[in-house]
């Protein structure tokens, strides 16, 4: 196991824990994206560039956009009430 | 060729319907029914032409040596039979949905067809990851179909708890698949079986099996993974309830035992006693909890949902006996009960369609003029209590015979009798109150205060005085089919053969990996014995007694401790996804721990 792998794995574990621990959803979306980026790096290190690219598109484009749009809707709802 | 068409035809139909939907608003047709009927027809031909096993390698990648690199559909009698049953229920569901579901686009039809296609593919697949994919496909379609009536609170919540718990379940399933791949380097069930055959039975294998089982039992609704099920099944559109209660849960059990026999058959050889105790114990617990909760309900569809949980427990007992005849009995029973439950859901829909309500209290005596349908409902309730000569009776008596052959399981017939009697009794009570107005009005349910208000526009309000023949004719036909299923000539022999092929690890592996045909020894299954009739008479009498006691309002006079326990049990079904996931974690830990203890 290389140093790079160890570091990548530890970052993934820490980012995952942080995603759970952050309770404010808007901030959590950012942390979750970071967790996704950490996973992307880990996949590259583990010789899986295809999966890494998928994870990159999912965690930096698809999920944040969806989550932020959902949160925007929820916030609007709050304003209306 | 035929095998792949069975899934390609409904998939193509579903996508075509969806592609047309934006341009044909409001158009409903028989195209979806035709698609599912076509799928069922092809499955019937496949079943008829399947000797012992039919193996198809997609994209033509046959195994080389012992290494399977492609995906195979490995069809046997049980798999194809179950697929045919799914297709048949799908036709019924789509016919009923013409009346019961207000759809403005073809998207509902498309998703329902896709749901059926996924279940059929799941029954036929012989590759564990491919099973996971079909499992996810049927789950995702089901989440949407359950939440279809988004304007109301209950379906939305039902869909959400369903989606959250089942997603966690499928993560555990996939984790188990990962562990198994690590051990065996294989995804094909037969190849996994060969790889595990000679290896030591270590913790890795046991934990992999435990996680896979947990993931699938969440779908089946085995206690304590059942909590989401009543919530989702009680609120889905009735046609979807028929598919969910009749087939979806049972597919979870099917997969547990498909994987157990084909992939772990060699590894667990010699450990049958321990495994049997675990499975029959879980089944018994599920049966008892499901039946008790069914008795406590006053919401008709929720009652049927808990009846399904109780039945899943009984099927698990039958399959968990780990013999060919136990498997055969469970298979017959699944179909028999599935037909009856579909009929009962349709009859509830007749009343709900007309009155716009679904609780005993609100419907008290409201359906007096529909007394013939009340008789049909009562007959259905008695069938669940396995009145001869229905398919439920035949299946149950085969399971009983199988249990009596095993030391230490002579109590199983009594358990089956009690559970079926309680479920049947609860349904009889509801029938008497709704269709005859007998006895006291049911108490207002403290846990379902706002339910009637919410359910008001659940199904389209016909406003007609008479019952809709579009709904009750299929129901009566289904009840007829349930009776015919019990007396179908030659059924016992063919199911015995199919069950023997289902549990034969070596013959399956030879057929899949070597293309070789091994003879399979089918057990002889005798017609129901006198004991079988006696137990059936016992549970029918019990059901009548429980029904009568319920009408007389004896439930309120039970000792305080019993009522407190019942209230406690109901409070656990809290409707909160967070609680449900906590229970899931508890169940997963318990099952993994127990299996690790008894198997290693």
């Amino acid at each position, binding site marked *: 196991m290389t140093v790079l*792998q*160890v570091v990548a*794995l*530890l970052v993934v*574990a820490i980012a*995952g*824990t942080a*995603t*759970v621990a952050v309770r404010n*959803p808007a901030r959590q979306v950012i942390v979750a994206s970071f*967790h996704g980026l950490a*996973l992307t790096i*880990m996949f590259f290190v*583990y*010789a*899986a560039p*295809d*999966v890494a690219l*998928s994870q990159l598109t*999912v965690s930096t484009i698809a*999920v944040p956009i*969806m*989550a932020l749009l*959902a949160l925007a*809707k*929820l916030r609007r709802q709050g304003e209306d009430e | 060729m035929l095998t792949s068409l069975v899934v390609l035809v409904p998939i193509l139909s579903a996508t075509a319907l969806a592609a047309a939907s934006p341009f044909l608003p409001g158009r409903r047709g028989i195209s979806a029914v035709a698609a599912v009927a076509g799928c069922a027809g092809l499955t019937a031909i496949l079943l008829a032409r399947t000797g012992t096993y039919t193996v198809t390698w997609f994209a033509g990648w046959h195994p080389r040596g012992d290494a399977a690199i492609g995906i195979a559909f490995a069809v046997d009698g049980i798999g194809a039979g179950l697929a045919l049953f799914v297709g048949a229920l799908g036709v019924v569901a789509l016919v009923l949905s013409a009346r019961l579901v207000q759809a403005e686009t073809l998207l509902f039809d498309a998703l329902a067809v896709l749901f059926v296609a996924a279940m059929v593919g799941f029954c036929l697949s012989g590759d564990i*990851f491919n099973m996971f*994919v079909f499992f996810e496909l049927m789950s*995702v379609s089901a*989440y949407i179909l359950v*939440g279809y009536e988004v304007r109301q*609170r209950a379906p*939305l*919540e039902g*869909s*959400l*708890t369903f*989606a*959250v718990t089942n*997603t*966690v379940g499928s*993560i555990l399933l*996939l*984790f188990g698949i*990962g562990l198994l*791949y690590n051990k065996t380097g294989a995804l094909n069930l037969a190849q996994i079986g060969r790889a595990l055959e000679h290896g030591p039975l270590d913790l890795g294998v046991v934990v992999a099996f435990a996680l896979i089982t947990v993931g699938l039992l969440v779908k089946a609704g085995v206690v304590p993974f059942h909590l989401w099920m009543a919530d989702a099944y009680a*609120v889905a559109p009735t046609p979807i309830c028929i598919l969910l209660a009749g087939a979806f849960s049972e597919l979870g059990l099917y997969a547990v035992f498909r994987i157990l026999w084909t992939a772990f058959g060699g590894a667990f050889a010699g450990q049958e006693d321990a495994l049997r105790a675990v499975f029959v114990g879980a089944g018994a617990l599920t049966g008892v909890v499901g039946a008790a909760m069914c008795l*406590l309900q006053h919401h008709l569809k*929720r009652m049927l949902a808990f009846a399904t949980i109780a039945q899943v427990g009984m099927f698990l007992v039958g399959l968990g006996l780990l013999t060919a005849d136990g498997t055969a009995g469970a298979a017959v029973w699944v179909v028999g009960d599935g037909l009856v439950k579909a009929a009962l859901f349709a009859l509830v829909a007749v009343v709900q369609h007309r009155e716009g309500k679904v609780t005993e209290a609100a419907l008290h005596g409201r359906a007096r003029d529909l007394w013939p349908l009340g008789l049909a409902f009562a007959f259905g309730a008695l069938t669940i209590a396995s009145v001869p000569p229905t398919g439920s009776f035949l299946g149950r008596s085969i399971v009983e015979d199988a249990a009596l052959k095993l030391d230490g399981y002579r109590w199983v017939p009594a358990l089956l009798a009690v559970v079926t009697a309680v479920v049947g009794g609860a349904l009889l009570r509801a029938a008497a109150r709704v269709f005859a107005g007998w006895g006291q009005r049911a108490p207002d*349910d*403290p*846990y379902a205060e706002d339910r009637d208000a919410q359910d008001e526009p659940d199904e389209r309000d016909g406003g007609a005085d008479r019952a809709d023949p579009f709904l009750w004719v299929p129901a009566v036909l289904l009840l007829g089919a349930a009776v015919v299923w019990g007396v179908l000539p030659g059924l016992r022999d063919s199911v015995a053969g199919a069950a023997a092929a289902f549990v034969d690890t070596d013959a399956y592996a030879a057929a899949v990996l070597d293309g070789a045909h091994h003879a399979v020894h089918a057990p002889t299954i005798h017609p129901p014995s006198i004991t079988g009739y006696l137990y059936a008479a016992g549970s029918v009498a019990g059901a009548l007694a429980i029904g009568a006691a319920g009408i007389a309002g004896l439930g309120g006079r039970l000792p305080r401790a019993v009522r407190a326990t019942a209230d406690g049990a*109901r*409070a656990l*079904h809290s409707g*909160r*996804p967070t609680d449900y*996931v*906590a229970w899931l*974690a508890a169940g997963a830990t318990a099952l993994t721990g127990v299996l690790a203890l008894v198997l290693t």
Partner: protein
Amino acid sequence: MLAYVVAVWLLVVGIVGIVTSRHLVHLVLCITVTQSSTYVLLLAVGFRENGTGRAPIFADLPPGTPVVDPIVQALTLTDVVVEATVTALLLALTVQVAKRFGTVDPDELGALRG
């Protein structure tokens, strides 16, 4: 071995997050953390240190070079897509729940009880 521990850790932490969640969007993102445990597990299973741990892409490699297991990578690829779609569905349900009854706290749900 560390990879396996991290996979198990993500699984456990994710479930703890789901169970203690007080906001549905938070709950959905906790599910994605739980899901990521399976990616880590699968890729760790497929990775081999013998040879050089090369990616299974022969654009610049001579055929026959030892590479890591491509099958688990294909499985993970499928898994990533499935996870993204389930996330989308759950978020849509969350938006509807908020719209219909003005709450995003999973503990306030429970129209169906008992």
